[in-house]
């Protein structure tokens, strides 16, 4: 008798608050949407400056991608955790303080453990602060959603940013330096006289590749910017 009531109570409880699967359909969308359909770079056209600046070679680009993803995820998490305590009138300043602190942390850690990378990326790590993707996610998502969802959203935006800049870097390094991850690929297959393209080493090369990427993507998805 008593066990029966307990079971009934439990059933009622579950009915009232159905626990969502760890990776429900809704949550999967947080990650998958920013990859293509709502990509921060190619659709929202945010974070372009760093996409141009660090994509000369694959290795710094990968570091930058990891750094940006880490900053988005953790700032999303922190802001989401304290979202009910943040005074509305200073929320932008609070967001900025959190981002700036995380970026400084990343930069200090790079300097202590990956000094060569720190020298290459230099100022650009600090400029993650001004990367509109990070603040955009905080203001648009983390301020109104639960911590776990915010982490997923951060991962999604981070990966969306990462794969685009990695693709850009792949072509820039391949055509501009004739290498991939500093491995001289053309020399390895016996074409040592590969004419490297100086345009690709310049920011202009990034503009062109990014433009072509966006073109291909939009011709497939049929996305048109609203006027």
């Amino acid at each position, binding site marked *: 008798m008593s066990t029966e009531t307990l079971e009934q109570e439990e059933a009622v409880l579950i009915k009232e608050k159905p626990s969502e699967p760890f990776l429900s359909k809704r949550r999967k969308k947080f990650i998958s949407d920013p990859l293509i359909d709502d990509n921060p770079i190619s659709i929202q056209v945010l974070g372009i400056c760093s996409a141009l600046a660090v994509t000369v070679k694959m290795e710094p680009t990968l570091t930058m991608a990891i750094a940006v993803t880490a900053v988005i995820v953790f700032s999303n998490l922190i802001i989401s955790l304290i979202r009910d305590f943040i005074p509305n009138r200073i929320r932008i300043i609070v967001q900025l303080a959190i981002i700036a602190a995380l970026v*400084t942390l990343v930069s*200090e850690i790079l300097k202590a453990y990956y000094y060569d990378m720190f020298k290459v990326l230099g100022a650009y790590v600090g400029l993650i602060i001004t990367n509109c993707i990070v603040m955009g996610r905080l203001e648009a998502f983390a301020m109104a959603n639960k911590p776990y969802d915010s982490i997923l959203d951060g991962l999604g935006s981070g990966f969306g940013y990462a794969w685009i800049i990695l693709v850009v870097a792949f072509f820039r390094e391949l055509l501009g330096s004739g290498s991939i991850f500093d491995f001289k690929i053309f020399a390895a297959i016996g074409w040592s006289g590969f004419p490297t393209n100086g345009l690709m080493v310049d920011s202009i090369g990034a503009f062109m590749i990014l433009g072509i990427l966006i073109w291909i993507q939009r011709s497939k998805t049929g996305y048109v910017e609203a006027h």
Partner: protein
Amino acid sequence: MRQSNTYILIFAAGLTIIVGGLLSTTSVVLKPLQDKQVELDTKKKILSAVMEVSSIKYPDEILRVYAENISSYVVDFQGNLVEKDAKGIDIVAEKINVAKNSKLPKEERMYPVFQAINGDQAYIFPMYGQGLWDWISGFIALEGDLNTVKAITFDHKTETPGLGARIADLEIQERYVGKKIYDASGTLRSIDMVKGEKGLPLNDHHVDGMSGATMTSKGVNAMLRKYLESYGNFISKTRQGSKVASW
């Protein structure tokens, strides 16, 4: 309540304390590691002027190779050995801050010399100057005759990628190898990077320029001249001492 001024002030103060505390703790904790990285980087740069170091993977290995191959000391403008500073503390060549020193009048500066002691003779001098946007620095390695350039390395803070930043590329640095800093009569000529990039063979005192980076190359030229002049007394003294016959 969340909109009251008192709450906002308390929240802002709390945030500042937490964030500030976190950052200063990190900075203090990571400082020794970062200092070691800087030291490693300096030694790597000095070594790379005389040997191939990119194949050395472990930091300790670099420190060991450095200790075996490089003898370092400090000279003054007159070319005399300086062992202790004004307070009587031993001077360590690697610890000399070339950037700070470059702001002093040249007679008061300390000049570190890194001498390769194994294998081929080489003298390595650090340099520091101004590029287009910010500082540039480098090491020049001279052969045992103290005239021929054995190798040169440049570093920079924020020269334009693809233009001035090319001074950090091997392609540019290799242009200096084999050039001479003195002419036949023994006058300092330094090595100038010309304007424009034509890929032409140039004489002993000029290297091909970098297209679109005239300001950076002017900075490089000025830096080279300044330091080669400053090390002039040391160079002539060493030459007399070691009786190098030919220029």
